[in-house]
């Protein structure tokens, strides 16, 4: 483990202060309440911060490439997951389907059966859904 002697000449304090600076940016930026600025300062800066922590504190830059690949694959999988889910979960209305607005009004599951908008159809009973 002694061969893992990198990082001796890293100035951790300097990186720490840069991170704090970025933290301030990510707080001040969104106060402008401009969507694009918020996106860049809040999420763009978060990515930069995460990258700096990974590179400098976790020493990922001098780690074996296989580790970088592994972590990268994990992140890519999450992008795939996002891409696969987005057409269904992220939308209110898709190809041949739409979310039923009436469902949003009811917050109490107790009267969900009838009050979920199908009250007018509930005349045929709940067929013994005995709860």
């Amino acid at each position, binding site marked *: 483990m002694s061969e893992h002697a990198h990082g001796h000449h890293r100035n951790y304090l300097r990186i720490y202060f840069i991170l704090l600076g970025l933290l301030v940016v990510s707080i001040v930026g969104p106060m402008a309440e401009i969507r694009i600025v918020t996106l860049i300062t809040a999420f763009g800066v978060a990515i930069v911060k995460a990258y700096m922590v990974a590179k400098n504190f976790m020493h990922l830059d001098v780690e074996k490439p296989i580790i970088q690949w592994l972590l990268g694959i994990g992140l890519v999988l999450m992008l795939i997951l996002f891409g696969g889910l987005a057409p269904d979960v992220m939308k209110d209305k898709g*190809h*041949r*389907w*739409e*979310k*039923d607005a009436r*469902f949003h009004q009811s917050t109490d599951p107790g009267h*969900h*059966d009838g009050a*979920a908008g*199908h009250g007018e*159809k509930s*005349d*045929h009973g*709940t*067929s*013994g*859904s005995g709860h």
Partner: protein
Amino acid sequence: MIERWVQQASSFAGDVDGLVLLVTVLVGFWFIAAEIMFFWLIFRFRKREGVATQYLSGKEKHVKNWVNIPHYLVLVCDVFIIIAAVQVWVKIKQTLPPADATIRVVGQQWAWTFTQPGPDGLLDTADDIRTSDDLHVEVDKTYHFKLEATDVLHSFSVPVFRLKQDSVPGRTITGWFKPTKAGDFDIQCAEICGIGHGIMAARLHVETAEQHQEWMAQNSPIAEAEAAVSDSTTSE
């Protein structure tokens, strides 16, 4: 293939069956070819005294092609199947031919409710006909359905139509079918929905135009109300 057990009663049932036949032929060929090769090799190279095994890594040209060529042919078969499958899929699920009527199908634990327009042809009006566990449709008419669920997932499955679509609480899913054959058929729930899942059956009645008109006339809520009114007046 499937029509041997289940009749074709919708405009796209034949397409699905054709696709199934195509897949059966293609994968059947590969399955039988692979099994024959497999059992022949087991027999041909069974242990025999004094016969040494051949030292092959799989890189030798004369043996490699026995794997490589079938491998490419499988890819070609895949392409045919993909094209056929997507065509059928697009026809059933993606395109929406103009409707003669729109019905609403609601699944709930453990019954199907069907609402269809009365004589005015519009849904959500006073003359709607609502039925439970019985769906009456007219042959050769294109229907759109609005599929909903009130509690848990259900799946609207009509085997003779080759049609299946999950119903999801909180969503309205639109689809279509066009019955082509008169008769009485099963509607099943194909998504487990609790202890009554096994009894969540409904009956589909595909009727001729006259039968359907007659059924509509008998079951129209407005006609019933009028009949009730006229009954009471005549009896007085």
